[in-house]
C-alpha cells in the first residue's frame, strides 16, 4: 500500500530481511508508517513482529538490501542512538522507567541526559514534566514516586517521556494487557491525541477487538512476511484471524451437551471485600464460563475454590461431599485443580525443566523404592505429556522459560491433569497466547469436558467464552448478576450485558 507524497510518510521500510543462521525471521518486508498514523501490527508468536521492531529501532541490523527511510531521508545504518535521535521510541515501562524516582523525573529524563548538564534546576524539571503530561492530556502528581502509581499510569508516564524527548513514532508492545476497560479507553484516547499532534503510533497487540477499535491501518505478519496491510475500513475480525493463521478458522460454538451430575455446588460463598453470596452449580462434562469486568472478584473466587483464599461464609460440596476450603492441599486432595492467571509466577517454575514442572503434582507417581525420585519414571511421564498435549519443545529437559506462552500454558494444564481432577478451574488461560496455541488449549479443554471433568473457565474474552462454554455467568463487583445458556446469546448481546 503506498501513500501519496513522501511528506506524509514518516517511516518507510523496503525489502527488510533478517536471517538468523538457518531461520528466516523476516522475508522482504515492506512497511510504511505515515506521519501521525495509528498503525497496528498483528501476528502470531514468531511471525516476525518483534524482529521487525528491533530492526526499526536499530537494535538489530537487517540483511543487506534493505532500505530504511525516516522522514524522507535514507538511513543506511540505523543504530539505537540514531533511531532515538530521529524520533523512534519504544514505550516499555519495565525497561524505561525508574520506580524510585518521581513522576517528574521520569517524564523529564531527557533533561538529565543532556550532554554537559551538571547542575539540576528542579524548577525546569517540573516545568518540562508538566508540559510533557499536558501534551497527552493527563494529570498525574509530579512528586509521587513512580512505583506508587498503578501500571496504567506508569504507562502514560512512559508515553509522556517519549513525547518530551521529541518522539515522532511511538512503538508499544501489547500495551493493554493488565489494564482495566476504563484505562484502556484512556490509553486509546491518548493514542488518538498523539495522532492530532502528528506523532505516529505503532502497536503490537493480540487483542483484535481493541485493534479494530482504534487502528487506522493494520498490518498482518505471518511467517516472517507481511500477509497484508489494510486500512481499517477494509478488514474485519474474521479476515484478520484467517490472515494470521493462514487458513479459514471457523467460529465455533459448543455442541449442546446433556449435563451430567452436579460435581461442584457452591452456595452463598462470601468473602468481605472480594465477593458476596456466590452460588453456582457445575456439572460433570460441562464448561461454565465466568465473565466480568476487571475487579469483579473472579480470580478471588477461583482462589477461594482452590483453598488459597478461605471464604468468610458459605458452603461448597464436591461430588456430594462437603468441601473444606482451608488450603490448596485440601482442594487438590478433593480433586480440584487451578490453572492460575499469573502463569509465569504461579503456574510454572520458569527455570526448571518441563519434566520437573510436570512432576510437581505427581510425586507419588515418580517415586521409586526408598522414596527416591525415579528419573526414568519422571522422564517417561514427561515424554507422554509432551505428546498428548502437543507441546512443542526440543526435549523434556529444557527449562520452561524457553517455551512460548502457549506451550507453557499446556505444561501447566498437563501438570494438573496428571492428578485427574474432577473440577478444573482455568483463570484467563489464553491471555497473551497466539491464535493457534489457543485452539490447541481449547481442544484440550473440550476433550476434558467430554471425559466428564467439570470445567470453570474464567475469561476476559467474549469470543472465547461463547465458543467453548456451555453456560455462562456474569460476575460484577463480587456478585453473580446473570446466568444463562451459552447458545442463547450472541456476541453483541453478551458484550452489552457485560459492559452495561
Amino acid at each position: 500500500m503506498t501513500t501519496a507524497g513522501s511528506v506524509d510518510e514518516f517511516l518507510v521500510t523496503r525489502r527488510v530481511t533478517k536471517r538468523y543462521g538457518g531461520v528466516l525471521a523476516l522475508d522482504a518486508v515492506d512497511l510504511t508508517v505515515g506521519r501521525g498514523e495509528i498503525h497496528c501490527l498483528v501476528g502470531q508468536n514468531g511471525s516476525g513482529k518483534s524482529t521487525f521492531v528491533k530492526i526499526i529501532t536499530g537494535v538489530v541490523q537487517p540483511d543487506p538490501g534493505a532500505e530504511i527511510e525516516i522522514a524522507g531521508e535514507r538511513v543506511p545504518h540505523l543504530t539505537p542512538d540514531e533511531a532515538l535521535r530521529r524520533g523512534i521510541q519504544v514505550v516499555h515501562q519495565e525497561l524505561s522507567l525508574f520506580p524510585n524516582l518521581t513522576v517528574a523525573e521520569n517524564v523529564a529524563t531527557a533533561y538529565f541526559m543532556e550532554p554537559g548538564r551538571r547542575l539540576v534546576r528542579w524548577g525546569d524539571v517540573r516545568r518540562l514534566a508538566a508540559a510533557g503530561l499536558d501534551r497527552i492530556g493527563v494529570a498525574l502528581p509530579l512528586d509521587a514516586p513512580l512505583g506508587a502509581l498503578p501500571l496504567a499510569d506508569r504507562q502514560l508516564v512512559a508515553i509522556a517521556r517519549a513525547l518530551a524527548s521529541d518522539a515522532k513514532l511511538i512503538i508499544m508492545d501489547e500495551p493493554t494487557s493488565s489494564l482495566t476497560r476504563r484505562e484502556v479507553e484512556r490509553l486509546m484516547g491518548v493514542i488518538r491525541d498523539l495522532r492530532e499532534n502528528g506523532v505516529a503510533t505503532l502497536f503490537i497487540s493480540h487483542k483484535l477487538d481493541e485493534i479494530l477499535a482504534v487502528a487506522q491501518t493494520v498490518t498482518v505478519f505471518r511467517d516472517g512476511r507481511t500477509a497484508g496491510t489494510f486500512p481499517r475500513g477494509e478488514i474485519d475480525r474474521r479476515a484478520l484471524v484467517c490472515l494470521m493463521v493462514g487458513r479459514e478458522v471457523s467460529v465455533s460454538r459448543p455442541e449442546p451437551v446433556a449435563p451430567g451430575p452436579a460435581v461442584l455446588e457452591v452456595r452463598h460463598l462470601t468473602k468481605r471485600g472480594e465477593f458476596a453470596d456466590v452460588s453456582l452449580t457445575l456439572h460433570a462434562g460441562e464448561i461454565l464460563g465466568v465473565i466480568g469486568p476487571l475487579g469483579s472478584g473472579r480470580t478471588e473466587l477461583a482462589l477461594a475454590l482452590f483453598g488459597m483464599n478461605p471464604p468468610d461464609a458459605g458452603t461448597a460440596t464436591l461430588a456430594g461431599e462437603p468441601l473444606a476450603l482451608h488450603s490448596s492441599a485440601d482442594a487438590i486432595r478433593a480433586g480440584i485443580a487451578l490453572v492460575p492467571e499469573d502463569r509465569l509466577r504461579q503456574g510454572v517454575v520458569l527455570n526448571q525443566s518441563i519434566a520437573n514442572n510436570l512432576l510437581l503434582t505427581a510425586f507419588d507417581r515418580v517415586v521409586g523404592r526408598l522414596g527416591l525420585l525415579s528419573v526414568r519414571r519422571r522422564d517417561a511421564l514427561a515424554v507422554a505429556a509432551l505428546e498428548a498435549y502437543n507441546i512443542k519443545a526440543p526435549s523434556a529437559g529444557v527449562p520452561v522459560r524457553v517455551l512460548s506462552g502457549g506451550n507453557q500454558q499446556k505444561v501447566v494444564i498437563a501438570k494438573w491433569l496428571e492428578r485427574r481432577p474432577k473440577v478444573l478451574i482455568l483463570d484467563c488461560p489464553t491471555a497473551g497466547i497466539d491464535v493457534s496455541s489457543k485452539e490447541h488449549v481449547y481442544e484440550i479443554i473440550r476433550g476434558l469436558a467430554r471425559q466428564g471433568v467439570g470445567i470453570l473457565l474464567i475469561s476476559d474474552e467474549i469470543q472465547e467464552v461463547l465458543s467453548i462454554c456451555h453456560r455462562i455467568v456474569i460476575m460484577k463487583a463480587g456478585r453473580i448478576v446473570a446466568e444463562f445458556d451459552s447458545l442463547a446469546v450472541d456476541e453483541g448481546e453478551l458484550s452489552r450485558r457485560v459492559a452495561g
Partner: protein
Amino acid sequence: MRAAGRKVLGRVELYLVAVLVILAVFLTALNRRFLTLENLFDLLANYTFLGIMALGELVVLVSGGIDVSFTAIATVAQYVMGWIISTYQIGSVLVAFLIPLPVGIALGLVNAGLVHLTQVHPVIITIATLNIFYGLLVFVTGGAWIYNLPASFQAFAVTKIIRVVDRAGTPSGLSVLSLFWAGAIALTWFILTHLVVGRKVYAMGGNPEAARRAGVRVPRLLAFVYGYMGFLAAVAGFVQAQLAQIVQPNAIVGRELDVLAAAILGGASISGGTGTVSGTVLGVLLVAVVTNGLILTRVPSYWHNVAIGVIIATAAGLMASQRRRTTRARGAS
C-alpha cells in the same frame, strides 16, 4: 509529598527522629550525664569517622551496589599519609589531609574497574579487595604502627570550634573534626540532590537496564560511585588518625558492620535506588546514641554488638513490611 530532592524528612527519617528522642529521654533518665554538652560533643567527635563513611556507603547503596572494602581503603590511605608525614615530618595539616585523598580515590576506582570488568556482584568484589588491600598493606609494612606524627597533627586534633564551660567549671568543646562530617554531609547532599550525576546514581539503582537505555554511561557512573566512597573513606581515615594520634593498620578494619547498619537504618536499601543523607545521618546518630547509652549504663561491651544487631534486624524488618504493604495496595486488581 514534596519532590524527592526537596523533602528533608520522609517517613523513615521521622521514625528515626522519634526513636532518637525516646532513647534520649530514656537514657537521660538512667544517667543524667547523657544529655550534657560534654557527652554530646564527645559523641559527635567520636562518630564523625563512622558518619563520613556511612555517607560514602549511602552513595554506593543507592547506586545498587555495596562496598565493604572501605575500612581497608581508609586504613591504606591513612597509612600512606602517616608514613609520609612522619618520615618527612610535614608540618602542614592541610597537606596531611590532602595526601590520603588520591589514595582513597585510586583504590575506589580499582573497585569500580573490577565491578565493571568482571560483572561480578560488588559484594564479592569488595570482599576480595578488602582482603587484598589490607593484606598487601600488612605485608608491605609488617603491620608496624606509626606513632611519631608531627606535633601540628596533634595540635589540630584538639582544636575546638565551640568552647563551653559548664556549671562545674569543666571545659568542653565541639571538635573541629566534626566539621569534616558536616562537610561530608553537605557535599553528599548537594551531589545527590542537585547534581545530575547524583540523580543518575538513583536512576541506576532504581532500574539499571532503564538507565543504560536512557544513555547513562555505566562504567563512568561506577567510577564516580566507588571513587567517591574511596574519597570519603580517605577523609575518614584522616579523621580517625587525628582521633587516635597513631596509625595502627588493624584499628579500622572490622567495623564495616556499624557503617552498613547506619546506612541501612537510614533507609538505604540493599537493592538500590533509595536512601537519603538525612536518613543516613540519623542512622549514625541512632547507632551512636545506642552505643553511648550502653556505655553510660555500664552494659558490658560484649552486648553492644547484640544491641546493634537487634536494631538492624528490627529496622530492616519494619521497612520491609512497610514496602510489602504499599506494593500489595498497589497491585490489587
